[in-house]
Structure formats: C-alpha cells, structure tokens
C-alpha cells in the first residue's frame, strides 16, 4: 500500500474534478460521490496506519520534477550521488562536491566541507530508527541524540534536481487518518447543514479540493511539495470562507485570510530559496539526516536556521499565530462545517504540522526554539483573553482554536515534538465536534449570538451533550483526551525547566475552561433569552447528529493512546529523533485539573448561579473589557500602519507613473514636436523663404522688365541712345 499512498490524496481530487466537470447538475450524486471518495481515503489511511504501526521506519518515494544543469549556482555545493547500476540496492556512495567555478571563489564562507565517513557499519546503526536504541552515539551525533535513516539522494553529478515525493512516517500516518476522518464526518454533516443551498454541488467540490490539498500536504516529502499543497490549502480556504460571497463581509474575510496567510508564505518561500541555496535540498528526510549527522558545515548552519525562522513565518500565518492571527476569527463567515474543517484538521493544522516537520531545523538554534515557544505562549494567552468576552459562539471557538494552536507551538518550541503533535490530534477531534455542535445550534436558532440563546439543552439533547463532552475535553478534564494531551505539554515544559511557559500554560488552561463553560452555560442552560428563537429550535437531523456522536467518542477516547503509563503508547510511535517523553507528573496533573475545575466553577458561579453578574465585572473593569472586546485593536492597528499606507502609496505611484514617467515620454514627444515646429518655421521662412525669394525676385523683375520689351524698333533705338548718353556722361565725369 505505502508506495501507492498518493491515492489517498488523489481520490478527493478525482471527486473535485468529476464534480466540476460532470456531476454538478445533480446535488445528490455530487455529494455522495465526494463522501464516498473521502471515506475510501479514510479506509486507505487506516491501512497505511496499520502498516506503519507494523513497521514504523519512514518510507520515501520520489520522482524528478525539474532538472537543471548546475552552472552558475553559488551557495553550498550539492551532495550528489552516483548510483552504481548493478548494485542499486546497496547504499549509494556519496560524493560531496563543491561545484564552484573560478569566479566564485571570492564568495567566502560558502564552501562545503563535509566529512562523511559512512561505511556500512555506521549506516547499519542508523538504519535501525524504529528500534529504540540507546547506544552511545558516535562522533557525529548531535547533542539531541538524533538518529536517522540514510535518506535517498537525488541527482547526478553536475545537475541540480528538484524532486517531488511522498514521505510516510508515523506522524504522516496519524495525520492522514485524522484528516480523512474529520473531513469525512464534516462532509456527512454538511448534507444536513448545507441542504437547499443553491451552490450545493460546488460546495462539495471545494470540500473535496480542500481535503485533497491537506492530504497532499501531509504526504509531501519535501518542503517544496509541501509549499505547493500549502498554497492550495490557502486557496481552498479562501474559496470556502468566501463561499457565501454575496455577503461582502464573507468575501472580505476570504480575502483577508488569503492575503494574511500569504504574508507568512513569503517567509516560507524565501526560506525555501535559502534552504536550497544553503543545503541544495528541500527533502524532509535528507535535511533531517544532514542536520542530525553534522553534514552541513558549521558556517552554513546559521543560514539554515534563518531559513527555518522564515519558514516558520509560514506556519505563523497558517496557524493564525501572533502577529498574523487576525484572519482566523473573521473566517467565521464561511459555512460552519467549513470552520470545523479549517479549525480542526486542515488549514490551521497545516501550520503546526509544518512546524513539527521542521523540528530538526528549529532545534538548530536555541534562540529559534525560544522564538517558537514564545510566540506560541503569547498567542495562547492573547487569544484566550479575547475569547473571554466575545458573544459570537463561533468567534469564541475561533479564539479558542488560536489559543490551543499556541499551545502546540509552545510545545514544539520546547522540543516537545510528541506533545505538540499529540495535542494536534486530540484537538482535531474535540474542536471539530465543538464547531459542528455549534453549527447544529446555529442551524436551529439562526443566530450566532449567544445573547439570544439559552436553555437549548432541553430541545437539543444530543447537541448539548456532545458539546459538553467537547468542552470538558478542551478544558482538560480527566480522563478525556484533552487532559492527556495538555498534560503532556505541561510535562514537557516542567521537565525542561521552562517554568514561565508552564505558568502561562496553566493560566491559559484556566481561562479556556472558563470561556468554554461560559459558552456552554449561556447557550444550553438557564432560561431562553429569545423566546422566538427558542420555540423554533429543534434537534438537527440524523446526518448531522451521527457525526457529532462519533466525534464525541473520539474526543473522549483519542487521548487514551497517549496515556503516559502505557507501555507502547503514542510517544513511542510518534517522536523526533530518539524516543523520549516527559515523565508523567501526578502533581502537575492535579494542579491542571484544579485550575480547569476552578475555571468551570467560576463560569458556573457567574452564568448559572449569577452570584456575581457578568455585567458587574464588565463595568468594574471597563477599560480592560473594551480592550479585550475589541481584540486588542489589532485590526485597527494593521489598518493604520500597513493597509492604508499601501493604498496611499499605490495611488501616489500611479500618479507618479502618469505624471512623471509618462510625462517624460510625452514631454519628449512634445519637445520633438516643438523642435519640428521651429524647423518647420525656419524651413518656411528662411530656407524656403530664400528659395521662394529667389523665385519671387526673378518673377518680379521678369514682370516689370518685360514691359520694356515692347518689340518697337523706335523704343529700342531710344534706349540705345539714352544708354549712349549715360555712358558719355559717366565718361565726362
């Protein structure tokens, strides 16, 4: 199966193509076909997962995408391979080459000095990635004790190859399964939610394309291919966020999402360019291997780290981390199932997935790890604080996503590869559930505003129960999945001695519990605040509730694979480098439980018992409340500092173009015309004047002198006589 795992991604693409070109006439066939494809992908993903569980050694499959000669390339030389044709199964010999023509010599610092001493024994050692081997590392193991399998090398001598391929390791396998199951459930749910929409078939086409892009991203074996799917994910979320594009606010949101994430993608693109410049490869396993085994020379390491930071910018954009978090809450304008997909398994997950894949690069520099962790921690806090006061049910959930993604980033920054990806997985389930349940509520009451809800649990039994389960899970209540994954993150922070991060994490956990239960209480308990809406409310149809139930089960159980006392749990399956997970710490678990419970308790006191009213608190802390309610004024800030100046600048440039540059061109023309006008005058009056003057003179004289040409002999005789007289006078004088 593994060599053909691209089929998992290809099936939804097939659905997209068929719907766009053939099936779109029939809503039913389109949607069923799309669902059938994604469910098949899910089954195939399960097969892949089973196979990977069986043999967790990473697999890679490549094709050449582009080949160039390597003339004129600076930067690090490439490591290229000469395959020995008859012994292709053997480990290829490595030929480090510095292809540096003469003129490049002055470019200092970029030469490559690789010491590869890979005799067969060494390679045998590091091939055993699956086995947990604690042997003392040889001299080229880095401080992180990483061990990687020898990756495939690409290209021949004197050529520069950009290969594309798929890479399957345990993380890939897990993500494939998560993405396909969430996408499948969202598609089934949409049957009910989107019923009667005029663009129903197109909606399914977009969903299929979205699923395809995300599955492709997960399978991608090189950062270049990852970037390709990365952008496709961006495109499809643009299409889906702006799905109801008649609403200006929706099309604005789509545009904002696209442009904001594109700013992050600049970093990704530039990072890629630098990476290819410095290392000559963008293949995931090759990079990990080269970094782990010190095959990148010392003086190039900082450059690789910079590339890493830049690529991380892409993750910041996609995962809506500070300072590019502004698009995600606006993205709520899309249909709710889309939000579920974006928030759980696709768009925002992509950023964390990338950061996880970049683990090797991130770990090059301490500073970078701190940057990642700090951005994560700050975002977690920022979003949680905004989430406390929002009234739109989807917006609260959106900020909770941003906050949870912050957790994951923090974990990755603290070298908690296992913890971060584990939380990514559990979060996918409970956040999808939260959104779909919220969608079910919105479907029933036709409003997003929790101020007009209340008491819905009586009418929507399944929805309210599943929402409660998800809320408990995200709050980190024992023994739901959120508890285990959040605790793994705390354990990482504690073990590494990163106490500030730990404190922020626990604080945010309390805030999360508070706002989630504020949401729950306001929506489902108490007296209905809008009688009209309440009366019309009803439980959603089966095709919407069944996905909720399945996700509820997953929200409870998915975390159990990562219970730290398990002999072979998640942490011995998905890990970076060597198996390692933070030791479970009972006290830490208790603290996090107490904090979460007190968050829930506080929400209960305020919103159910009403011992203290929310209004009173709002009044008491008016400035803070306004500040939070306005989302820390980020939108306004960006408007004033970036967007408006750009608009101003473009107008100025256009004026400049018209007046100055075109002015010069036209001026040139005018000057030419003017000169030619002068020439023309000169020509008419002076040159031609002279010519005409000569003609005129002869005409003039001819005209007058001919009068004396009378033909009378007497007259001529008179003239002769007069002439003779004149001469005589002259002679005399």
């Amino acid at each position, binding site marked *: 199966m593994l060599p053909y795992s691209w089929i998992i991604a290809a099936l939804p693409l097939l659905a997209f193509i068929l719907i*766009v070109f053939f099936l779109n006439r029939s809503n039913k066939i389109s949607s069923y076909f799309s669902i059938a494809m994604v469910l098949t992908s899910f089954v195939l993903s399960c097969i892949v997962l089973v196979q990977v569980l069986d043999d967790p050694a990473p697999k890679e499959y490549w094709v*050449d*995408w*582009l*080949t*160039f*000669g*390597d*003339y*004129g*390339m*600076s*930067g690090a030389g490439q490591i290229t391979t000469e395959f020995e044709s008859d012994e292709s199964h053997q480990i290829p010999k490595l030929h480090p080459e510095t292809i540096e023509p003469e*003129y*490049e010599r002055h*470019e200092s610092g970029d030469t490559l000095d690789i010491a590869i001493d890979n005799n067969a024994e060494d390679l045998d050692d590091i091939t055993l990635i699956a086995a947990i081997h604690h042997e003392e590392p040889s001299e080229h193991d880095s401080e992180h004790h990483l061990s990687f399998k020898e990756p495939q090398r690409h290209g021949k001598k004197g050529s*520069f190859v950009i290969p594309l391929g798929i890479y399957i390791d345990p993380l890939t396998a897990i993500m494939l399964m998560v993405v396909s199951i969430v996408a499948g459930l969202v598609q089934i749910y949409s049957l009910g939610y989107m019923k009667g929409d005029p663009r129903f078939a*197109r909606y399914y086409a977009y969903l299929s394309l979205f699923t395809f892009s995300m599955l492709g991203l997960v399978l991608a074996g090189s950062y*270049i291919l990852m*970037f*390709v799917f*990365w*952008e*496709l994910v961006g*495109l499809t979320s*643009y299409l889906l966020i*702006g799905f109801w*594009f*008649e*609403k*200006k606010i929706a*099309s*604005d949101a*789509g*545009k904002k999402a*696209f*442009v904001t994430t*594109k*700013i992050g*993608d*600049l970093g990704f*693109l*530039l990072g*890629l*360019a*630098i990476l*290819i*410049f410095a290392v000559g490869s963008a293949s995931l396993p090759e990079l990990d291997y080269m970094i782990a085994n010190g095959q990148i020379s010392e003086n190039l390491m900082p450059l690789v780290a910079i590339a890493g930071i830049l690529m991380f910018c892409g993750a910041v954009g996609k995962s809506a981390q500070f300072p590019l978090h502004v698009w995600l809450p606006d993205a709520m304008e899309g249909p709710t199932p889309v939000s579920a997909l974006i928030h759980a398994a696709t768009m925002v997950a992509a950023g964390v997935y990338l950061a996880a894949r970049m683990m090797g690069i991130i770990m090059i520099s301490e500073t970078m790890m701190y940057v990642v962790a700090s951005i994560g921690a700050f975002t977690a806090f920022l979003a949680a604080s905004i989430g406390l006061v929002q009234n739109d049910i989807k917006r609260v959930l959106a900020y909770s996503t941003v906050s949870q993604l912050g957790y994951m980033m923090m974990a990755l920054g603290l070298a908690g590869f296992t913890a971060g990806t584990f939380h990514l997985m559990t979060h996918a389930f409970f956040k999808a559930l939260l959104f779909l349940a919220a969608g079910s509520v919105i479907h029933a009451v036709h409003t997003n505003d929790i101020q007009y809800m209340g008491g819905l649990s009586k009418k929507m039994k399944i929805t309210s129960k599943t929402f409660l389960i998800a809320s408990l899970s995200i709050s980190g209540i024992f023994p739901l999945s959120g508890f285990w994954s959040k605790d793994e993150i705390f354990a990482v922070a504690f073990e590494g001695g990163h106490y500030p991060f730990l404190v922020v994490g626990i604080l945010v956990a309390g805030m999360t519990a508070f706002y989630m239960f504020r949401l729950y209480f306001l929506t489902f308990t108490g007296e209905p605040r809008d009688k009209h809406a309440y009366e019309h409310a009803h439980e959603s149809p089966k095709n919407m509730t069944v996905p909720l139930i399945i996700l509820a089960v997953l929200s409870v159980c998915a975390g159990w694979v990562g219970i730290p006392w398990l002999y072979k749990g998640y942490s011995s399956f998905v890990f970076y480098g060597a198996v390692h997970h933070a030791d479970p710490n009972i006290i830490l678990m208790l603290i996090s439980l107490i904090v979460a419970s007190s968050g829930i308790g506080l929400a209960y006191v305020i919103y159910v018992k009403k011992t203290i009213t929310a209004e009173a608190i709002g009044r008491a802390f008016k400035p803070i409340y306004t500040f939070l309610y306005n989302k820390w004024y980020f939108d306004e800030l960006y408007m004033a500092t970036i967007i408006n100046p*750009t*608009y101003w*600048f*473009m*107008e100025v*440039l*256009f004026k400049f*173009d018209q007046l100055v*540059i075109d002015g*010069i*061109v036209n001026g040139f*023309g005018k000057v030419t015309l003017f000169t030619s006008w002068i020439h023309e005058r000169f020509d008419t009056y002076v040159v031609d004047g002279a010519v005409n003057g000569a003609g005129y003179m002869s005409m003039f004289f001819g005209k007058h002198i001919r009068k004396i040409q009378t033909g009378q002999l007497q007259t001529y005789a008179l003239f002769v006589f007069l002439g003779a007289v004149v001469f005589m006078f002259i002679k005399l004088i």
Partner: protein
Amino acid sequence: MESITMIKPILTYITFCPLIGVLAILLLKKESVGAIRWTAAFFSFVPFILSIYLVWFYLSSMGTGLLFDINNQTAGFVFDFEKPLVWFPQVNIFYHMGADGLSVPMIFLTGLLSFVSIFVSFSIKDRVKEYFAWFLLLEVGMFGVFSALDFFLFYIFWEIMLVPMYFLIGVWGGPRREYAAIKFFLYTLFGSVFMLIGILALYFTTGTLNMLELIRQNAMYSHLFQMWVFAGFFVAFAIKVPVWPFHTWLPDAHVEAPTAVSVILAGILLKMGTYGILRVSFPMFPEATKAYAVPIAILGLIGIIYGALVSMAQKDLKKLVAYSSVSHMGYCMLGMAAINTIGISGCLFQMFSHGVITGALFILVGVIYERAHTREIAAFGGLGVKLPVFTGIFVLFGMASLGLPTLSGFVSEFMIFVGSYKTVFFDKWIVILAVLGVVLTAGYILRMIQRMFLGQFNTKWEGLTEINGREIFTVAPLAILTILIGVYPKVLNVFLKDTVDNLVKLILG
C-alpha cells in the same frame, strides 16, 4: 560543426504561411466576411500545426544526441538549410533560419496564440478584410523574429511587426487609439534605432551579420565595446519588454487595442524583448552581461514592486492586467540577471507562462467588455452569481497570475526566486524585496476578483450572457497549458535545459 537540418525548411514554411494567407485574403471580396475569417483561421492553423511538428522534430533531434555537442558553443539549433542561403553576397547578408531551445517554445506559443486570437477576432465587425490581412502579416513578423539567425533578417522582421500593429491599434482600437498607436510605434522605433546602431557596430567590427558567428567570436570584442553595444541593444529590448521606466506605452497600447491584439501584444511581443536579450545580448557580450547584472536585477525588482502597486490602483480592468504585465516581466528580468541555469530557466518559464496566462486574461476581459461595454471594475459586482463559468475561468487565470502552485506562474516564480538567490552577481536583498511582490500581486488580483465577481449582484447586469462556446474554445487550450506546466514543468524544461546550460556556460566562460 555538425548541424541538424530539417528535411523540409519548416521554419520558412511556418513564417511565410501567414503571408500566403494575406495574399489570399486580399483576393477575397470585402463583403464575404465568413470566407475571410475562415481563410485567416486556416492560414494561422497551418503554422500552428507546423509548430507542433517543429516541437516534435526538436525533441526527436535531442534524442539523437547530435544536437548538443560539447565542443560546439552554439549547439542546440535545428536549421532550415544546411548552410545559410546567400542573399546579398556583397554585404555578407544571408537568409539564415534556425531554432533552438529558446525559440522552439516561443514559436509554438506564437502559433497557438495567433490561432486563438484569430478566433477571438471573429467578433470584429468592420473592415474585416483589412483586419485579418494585417493580423496575418503581424504573425509573419513574429515567427520571423523567433527564427531569424541573421541580423539583417532579424531586424527586418522586428520592424515588419510594427506596421500591422500600428494599424491594428490605430484603426480598430478604443477611443484614444491614435495616440496609443503612434506612441507604440514611435517608442518602439526609437528603440530600434539603438538596435540598428548595435548591429552596425557589430558588423563593422566583424564583417558578418550571422548571429551564431557573432556569438562564436565574442572573445574578440573589447570590454568597452561590449559595454556600449550591450547598452544599445538593451534599450531596444527593454522598451519592448517593457522594463521600468520604459513601460508607459504598454498600458495605453493595451487599453486601446482590440482584444486579440492585446493578447498578441502581451503574449508574444513583450517576450521578444526578453528573447532578444537572451539571444543577442547575453551570449554576444558576456563581459557586459556580468557587469550589468546588478542594474538589470534592480530594474526587474522595481518593475515587480512598482507594477504590482500601480496595478492595485487601477480602476480599468484591462489597465490592471496591463500593469500586471510590467510586474510579471520584472520577474523575467530578475531571473535572467541571475545568470545561472535556474534563474534563466525561470525567466523562460515566466515568458511562456505569462504569455499563456495574460493572453487568457485579456481574452476574458474582452469577453466581458463585449457584453457590458465597460471595463470599469467598480461597475461590476457579484458576477459570480450570474456567470459562474466565466467567473470560474477568470479566477483560475487570476490564481495562475498570482502564482498559485500547480499553475504555471508558480513554477516560474519559484525558479526565479531560487535562481536569483543562488546567484553570485547581486545581493540577496534584491530577492528578499522581490518576494514582497508575491503578496502585492495577491492583493490586487484578489481585490479585483472581489470587486468584480463577489459581493452583492449588481442587477444592472441582469442581461449579461454566459461565456459562449467559441470563447471557451479560445481559453481552453491556455487553461490546459497552464495546469500542465504547473503540475509537470518537465514538458517545458525538456526543451530549455540543455540550451540554457549552454547559454550559461557561454556567458560564464
């Protein structure tokens, strides 16, 4: 030197087939519009098919291994005739036609876009006979420029294009057509003068006008000579590209020109500038090329950012696309200034894909203009409701233009960024700034899409009809090419790779 000669002089056939079309059309009656149209279609279809044959022939010659001989600096050509035909022996002028990896894709693109444009032109209603005659004559010039290997011939074809273009804009154009046509004509002619000076300088130095011969002898040009002559040629080519700040003829010409002419202008004529630089300036003046790499890169950078920002300010849809060309051709300049294989391949990819994408965008602008009689972006709104297919196609090409992966624009941009980052000829900050262009491009394309197709449907356009079969037929091949190159760039790279390798080796010595 072993050279590959075609069994039939295909390039000659391709170039002069439209000329027969011109004669045929002139013989037809003015009133028989249908006959004229289909004659024109036929005489642009034949060279298109021949250009496909050329593509096939070139590929199969590459398979023989004869085409790229390491000892031969100017390898990679297939020729029409074994030896250049003697034309004016007194002054060493030959009839010399040949094509290599640079020109084969361009000849194919010319064939395709001309054929497509003829169909686009079916909506032309007045003075049909003259229109198609001029159009086919224009095609002769375009094919000629890409196949000529003798400077005299090259220059003739280069100038031949101006006349039809002048009339096509000046007669069938928009309200300010005369101004635009004269501006285009004079501006280009102004550049050509510098080219002529350059050609003469080369001729008096070497006594030959054979371009390959001139490349072969590039070692004998002094540094100073190279610097001056390169600059002269550069002015001519830069105006054609157009490189900032020589670009202001472009928006005027584009806005006033009829749709099909805009397609040709953006798709082919602009590419002649970059083609000229890569065919003439780079290999003939390697010293100067290296010396001028920084200014070229900076001009490219300015073009990218400046073009994108000015695009964003446009209210007229066609003008927006026109200024976006300035931005996209800036990428070409940046890529070629890198003088390495990835950068120059990226430049060639960008030439090809910009031709396809922008050509298609102009066709689509024409489609909407014919129906709505306005191009003002703000006048539209919510068209996605009424015209879903048109919107879908427009968004596809919009995305291609902003460099979405899996579409051809991305491949070229990516190669240009990687190439120009890997170069030794200019600093990295140029690339870092140039990458900003990606966001700006996304900004103006998305703004345009939003204002035209999204939002509340403007009921004023209730009567608009969906894109019709003929129009879909014209953009479909372009869409296929865009996706094909985006997904599997090897189809184009296979032509370029060895030629680009040769070129870079030649420059870097």
